[in-house]
């Protein structure tokens, strides 16, 4: 209607829409070149200091992983599939390997199953530390930016010993893991994990018990239990809203059934609870690693040999795991060729992003980083 009323609008390109301008409302393009946005844009409309409209605009780092996977063999898909979230590269390969094993009918050796669990839990710690560091700097707490980054190195060193690479490990392969651990890995791992857990406890003093942090994040961006289920959030966001849902417990894969751990659930559903759940989960990860090191067979094969170009049957599989950001599933469609016919990746990041407009509308602009990053959203993974 407005375009007809204004004669100047004839020159406007098709597809461009004009908005009615309200003098009281200011539109802010937060990102993609903004220190508080990540690889995405959030279109905010603010009235004074209050956000009246929020429109997240992801897609700046789309690389077409799903299409790329259709042109590569089941084994050569591994290195590029971990690119969307290199800090959590073991967990993003986990559903792929589980699916391909089911497709090809492979039985994974017992020791490899334990090694996978250890690697994926270590990787969850690496990711969560990185996420926590950015949460700290988003709230203006520069010490909380540096401490997790430094302590993360401990776990990265362990993973480097285990896999040979610091960040992009490519450790999981269909049929096991790529290589066995070095000789005294168990002792080193136990010692480092114990120290890491000791360091994690110190974060409570500087960050989680900080009165200013509590006053900023408590009761901001509250996501009720019903809304969390309705919006389809997963992972820490869901568990912070009081839903006891963890795929490691509900649909155990590999050896998670035999290990001793619990699921952390908080009922508040605010930013503080959402930021606390991943931190509590890291303690559980340490517990899982210690338990797995104890129960792991001390020797044995870690990988079964595959034929050069394994072909799947005319079937499709869907497997999902609990990653650092929630449920991470892969749907692999096979049409009897060495390549997958179709690979669909369903990530927790994107599902948590859906809650963002719901939470940010009505909040203050100062709460934007606190709410946004508490959603455990990794822009690169969401764009795939």
């Amino acid at each position, binding site marked *: 209607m407005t375009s007809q009323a204004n004669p100047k609008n004839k020159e406007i390109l098709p597809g461009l829409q004009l908005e009615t301008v309200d003098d009281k409302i200011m539109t802010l393009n937060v990102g993609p070149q903004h220190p508080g946005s990540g690889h995405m844009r959030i279109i905010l409309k603010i009235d004074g*200091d209050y956000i009246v409209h929020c429109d997240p605009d992801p897609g700046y780092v789309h690389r077409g992983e799903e299409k790329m996977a259709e042109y590569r063999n089941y084994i050569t898909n591994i290195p590029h599939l971990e690119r969307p979230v290199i800090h959590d590269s073991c967990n993003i390969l986990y559903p792929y390997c589980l699916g391909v094993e089911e497709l090809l009918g492979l039985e994974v050796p017992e020791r490899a199953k334990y090694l996978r669990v250890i690697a994926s839990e270590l990787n969850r710690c690496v990711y969560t530390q990185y996420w926590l560091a950015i949460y*700290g700097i988003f*709230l203006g707490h520069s*010490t909380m930016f540096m*401490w997790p980054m430094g302590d993360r190195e401990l776990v990265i060193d362990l993973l480097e010993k285990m896999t040979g690479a610091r960040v992009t490990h490519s450790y999981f392969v269909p049929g096991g893991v790529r290589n066995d651990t070095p000789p005294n890995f168990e002792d080193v791992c136990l010692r480092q994990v114990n120290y890491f857990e000791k360091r994690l406890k110190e974060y409570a003093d500087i960050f989680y018990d900080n009165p200013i942090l509590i006053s*900023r994040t408590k009761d901001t961006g509250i996501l009720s239990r019903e809304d969390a289920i309705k919006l389809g959030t997963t992972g820490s966001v869901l568990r912070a809203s009081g839903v006891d849902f963890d795929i490691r417990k509900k649909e155990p894969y590999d050896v998670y059934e035999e290990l001793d751990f619990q699921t952390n659930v908080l009922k508040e559903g605010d930013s503080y609870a959402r930021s606390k759940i991943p931190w509590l989960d890291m303690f559980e990860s340490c517990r899982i690693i210690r338990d797995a090191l104890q129960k792991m067979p001390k020797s044995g094969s870690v990988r079964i040999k595959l034929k050069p170009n394994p072909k799947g049957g005319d079937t499709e599989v869907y497997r999902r795991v609990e990653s650092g950001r929630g449920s991470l599933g892969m749907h692999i469609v096979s049409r009897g060729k060495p390549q997958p016919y179709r690979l669909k990746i369903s990530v927790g990041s994107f599902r948590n992003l859906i809650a963002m407009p719901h939470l940010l509308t009505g909040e*203050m602009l100062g709460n934007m980083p606190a709410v946004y990053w508490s959603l455990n959203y990794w822009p690169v993974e969401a764009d795939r």
Partner: protein
Amino acid sequence: MSVIAPKFRLGYLIKAITDNIFWIIVLLTLIGLPAVMIVLIYIDFPVIDGEIWNPFRVFDAMTHPERSLPLVKNFMQTDFFKIAVFPGLGFAALIGGGVIFVERKLLAKLQLRVGPFYCGKVEGILQLVADGLKLISKEIIIPAKADKPIFWAAPVLFAATAAAFVALIPVAPGWVVADIDLGLLAVFAVIGFFPIITVLSAWSANSKYPFIGGIRALFQMVSFEIPLILSLLGIVMLTGTLDLVEIIESQVNFPWIIFMPIGAIVFFICILAELERIPFDLPEAESEIVAGWLTEFSGMMYGLVQLGTYIKLYAFAALFVVMFLGGWNGPWVFPIEPIAEVITDGIVIMPGALTVELSGLPLFSQEMINGTIWFVLKTVAVIFFILLPRGVFPRVRIDLLLKIGWYKLIVLAFVNIFIALALVYSGVIGPGGIM
């Protein structure tokens, strides 16, 4: 392929100069100075006491302490020296630069890292110089729709206002640039200028994030200025004067922080808010509004604002020292009377030629050196406590900030005033100290 000759740009010129700075300095000293002196020989020189004062004679005099020391001492008593060097801008900028370096190293130690390390071989001591050179050599970009005169003027005004604040601070007995009777009132006037400059620069940039940052700065500074002024009112009641020098002299026996700790705490928190430091750095909140009202400043304009910020930091810390910690008062760090052995140890000068008695440090009086040492020590301690919250606290939100300012600090400042009133009426303390 065609080669286009580069157009002349100021940035290229500055880059050429910075690239060849070594050769420029060498050639200037080897060729330039002798050339200038040869030219000067053919100019008429002043005649003093029957001697022609050509440049050679001036150099000769400078190397001879009997003649040079009175010259330097006379120069030190001029207003120019006071404004530019000792209690004024040079001293403040030196402390400000030191604070930037110490802040980075201190935060690094807190955060399990090393901080500046490579620049200048020894613990990155020249990092500040490198940063300054980088800022100078950068291109200055101004938004197309900015109000250019005000946008250009804002950083200069900011640094100048901070320097005006420094001029009011007495550092040592007799060493203050502007010794006025209503010194504290002038301090309040200068503090009142900062929000105006901030809002002007934010508004003139004609950009959204600076505008939000400027409005936040306005809210913050205005709501924290009231408790800041109220918290100092108790001392004015007790001393009965607004003159900063007299306030310092009233603290010969005890600093005022002993009698009014509440006022000191309120004043300290207000300092943090006025300086836009964490946890009150909302006007520059990085993750929310990029860099706040500093967003559009580039190159040396940003450098000037940073310089002004750190000079302001020094000035506020110095004001805290003056009001609550007794300024230059302190025990003597070296003897009052000049000792005979010391005189013989120092530079050998003819005793009759100089008015200064003490050798070893012949240019300054002993009170001044002692006062400066205590003043700098106290200021550095206060600055340390101003820097420390940056490693410990996150940023507060704007509504919580205003609640702290209006609900808590003003109430506490009034409590402080009542304490001062009680002390005055009970007759324990009055103008001039304990009765």
